[in-house]
């Protein structure tokens, strides 16, 4: 699988009847307002826990630098939008949609993420 394909799951989540949830880590493994990278079926996913405890999952690929570093960005807000800034050249992305707020042509793929009753964190692959 090439690096290119890793960032672009070809089927949209929910299109197939079976969504596969992957156990990633314990919720408490995630620091508030920081991210981690996870490897899900060879795809690099950046997982974030915000200040208010929300979880988000985006592609870990930073299209502006070509490096897999989104998980290491600083979290914050712009207006009401929860954001992450790429650590490389600091473009800011909307955690909910993956949209780049500094360049409307760019958006990161997003992934479904959930916290289980056992306090595990799971990410869906499609």
């Amino acid at each position: 699988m090439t690096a290119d394909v890793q960032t672009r799951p070809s089927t949209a989540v929910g299109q197939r009847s079976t969504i596969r949830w992957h156990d990633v880590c314990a919720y408490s493994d995630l620091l508030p307002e920081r991210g981690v990278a996870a490897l899900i079926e060879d795809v690099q996913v950046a997982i974030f826990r915000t200040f208010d405890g929300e979880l988000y999952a985006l592609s870990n690929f930073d299209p502006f630098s070509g490096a897999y570093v989104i998980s290491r960005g600083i979290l914050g807000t712009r207006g009401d939008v929860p954001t992450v800034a790429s650590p490389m050249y600091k473009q800011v992305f909307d955690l909910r949609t993956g949209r780049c707020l500094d360049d409307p042509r760019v958006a990161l793929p997003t992934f479904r993420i959930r916290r289980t009753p056992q306090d595990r964190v799971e990410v869906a692959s499609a």
Partner: protein
Amino acid sequence: MNVGGEARKRLVVVGHGPAGHRLVEALRERDVTGAWRITVVGEEPRPAYDRVALTSHLTEGADLALPAHGPEVTVHTGDPAVEIDRTARTVTTASGRRVGYDALVLATGSSPFVPPVPGRDLPGVFVYRTIDDLDALREHCAARPGAGGVVIGGGLLGLEAARALQGLGVDAHVVEVAPWLMPRQLDEGGGAMLRRHIEALGLRVRTGTPVAALEAGEDGAVARVRLGDGSALEARVVVFSAGIRPRDELARRCGLPVGERGGVVVDAACRTADPAVFAIGECALIGGRVYGLVGPCLSMAEAVADQLLAEAGGSSGNARFEGADTSTKLKLMGVDVASFGDPFADREEGTLSVTYTDPVDGVYTKLVVSDDARTLLGGVLVGDASAYPTLRACVGSALPDSPGQTLFGGVGPAGGDLPDATVICNCNNVTAETIRRSIRDEGLTDVGGVKSCTRAGASCGSCVPLVKRLLDAELVAAGIEVDKALCEHFDHSRAELFDIVRVRRITTFTQLISEHGRGRGCDICKPAVASILASLGNGHILDGEQAALQDTNDHFLANLQKNGTYSVVPRIPGGEITPEKLIVIGEVARDFGLYTKITGGQRIDLFGARVEQLPQIWKRLVDAGFESGHAYGKALRTVKSCVGSTWCRYGVQDSVALAIRLELRYRGLRAPHKLKAAVSGCARECAEAQSKDFGIIATEKGWNLYVAGNGGMRPRHADLFASDLDEETLVRYIDRFLMFYIRTADRLQRTASWLEGLDGGIDYLREVIIEDRLGICAELDAAMERHVASYSDEWRDTLEDPDKLRRFVSFVNAPDVPDPSIVFETERDQIKPVLRTGPQREVLSR
């Protein structure tokens, strides 16, 4: 008077570009009685747009539309005028519409000049003038990614077009027939320097050769550009940008005089030979010349609006076109180039020119002044055009300083000092007085307000820095706080936040933002607050909530590299190192397969470490007695030294010992920006101390202390702060200097620009540090003592804390799997990163 109703006069404007648009707007604004009924006839399929910003349509998809006129103005788009009947006073359009007029204004602009070379009609050959031109160009390039392209013409517009082509993925050449680029604005030296900058952007340049022919490929579209010297350039796309020709065809056809080289002849009031017909903008030949810049075009529009109002009895009608400044600045390129006034005035008697060339920084500057060296006549700036707005505004008046001082002393007069009559915005002909008045009368507080109120800065934008300075000066004069807000989350400056945190003893970001800010922060305020908390001694930077504030470098205690790996820089105080330690570094680098390089800071950098390797690497280094070099932090970097009196036959003091002492004293000190220092053992200055934030040079009697030097982007020679100090006094002064800087500087402000912005400058600094004018020296001393006493090595602490080590994994669900995207190849026997995909700027989402 003929007010309203049937008595209204009819104005027809032909051409809806910036000039036509401005005319209508100026008239609408001032024609309060509605004396004129306005009809606009435009050829393009859309109403007027901001042609100056055309390229941003291509690069950013920007919406260029100028404000719509309102319902009382009739605008026919996509319907060019084809005939004027001056006897019947009617204009006929291509669709057969016939409109009568009492006054007619031609604002038909110009068209790109395409020289008659064979092949100029081939598919793939474009001009660069309208939105439609650019849309066609984009579509063509999108179908040919990575193709070669040629822009014919190396003037302002050609270079802009070439850069835009590059943005479309085209590998672009610029061909200029003159011996150097931008021959209309630059002299040979400036042209040569510009070429270096252009080539550094990856554009290729051919000068001194005409284009002989465009040749087609097998698909019938253009494939090659044949040059006058017989050589050929591959080109699947060609853009002509070889000058403009006024669109005077309508005027010609109805018998109005036009110039030999084109242009509708008008007088200073923009009237043609027929008193009912005016011509404005790029189609007009006024005072014997055609202006190809928007500023003069808009001035002509204003002048005609005035005549028309006078005809309706609403103004004196005295406005004339007074000639115009043709200063220009290349925009959108990432290269600073500007010319102002008459850059070629030095070819005349009675002038002097001062030139300055710095081949290292790629700077070329020329000022032309009158022979008493007082009056600025013109000049050229390449590589650094920061002084452009000020210099342009000074043309024709006295220089604030000697030419040399003006060139080297930086930015020139502060906004407050510019004479009222100075034209600040060329594009819209706005004077300092107008701006000042509008700030005062309308109570404006930001540049946006000034823009919409006066139009200054609303076109090419090159005057915005000057507008900002005027605004700040006015606000300060009015006692209004100048906006220093850190970002959208805090209204305070860094220095204010520092005081809040210090005085209120705040220890967490959460407390600070909930009490003094809003939202949850961003990549600007979080690291800034992290640095403040660290400067005030709040423990390890990865403790608790502080960890979430750090930029990735501080978060991993290493420097992020382009492929997502990190570099490792152990501290080597003063640059002195034992053979054993050198061997350890060598072994570590070898065992982890790292690239090694001697840095410019007298130490060794190991590159290419993956996050999960960092603790293992640092374990080996810490065990061998190394500690963090803080290459990642806004903190003290290195104190460079020369070998000094121990070995050097000229040395008068032990510079190495002092450098080590200072480096160990200030290591780990977090600051608004990084801090660099050096100690030289004698006046030969081998450690380059005068380019450092603080630098020390040995004398026979002790030490000279220099402060606020800078290498980097804007080099600054340090200022001599005090001479012949003994070591203890020296250290005390440095302590206070650093702590005062840390308290009062802005985010990411080095000591050099901090001192430049400090009211009272170096004298004031001496009063604060030596004479304790503010009565804070004891506090500053104590703060530094606390820092020295609480220092501990960040990497050692991290290795001892399992909680902090948890972050050093590649993947949270596969901690031992190395990031598969990190790949190296070998070059000169060491590793080199390979980016498998590279930057991609299209939409990636599903």
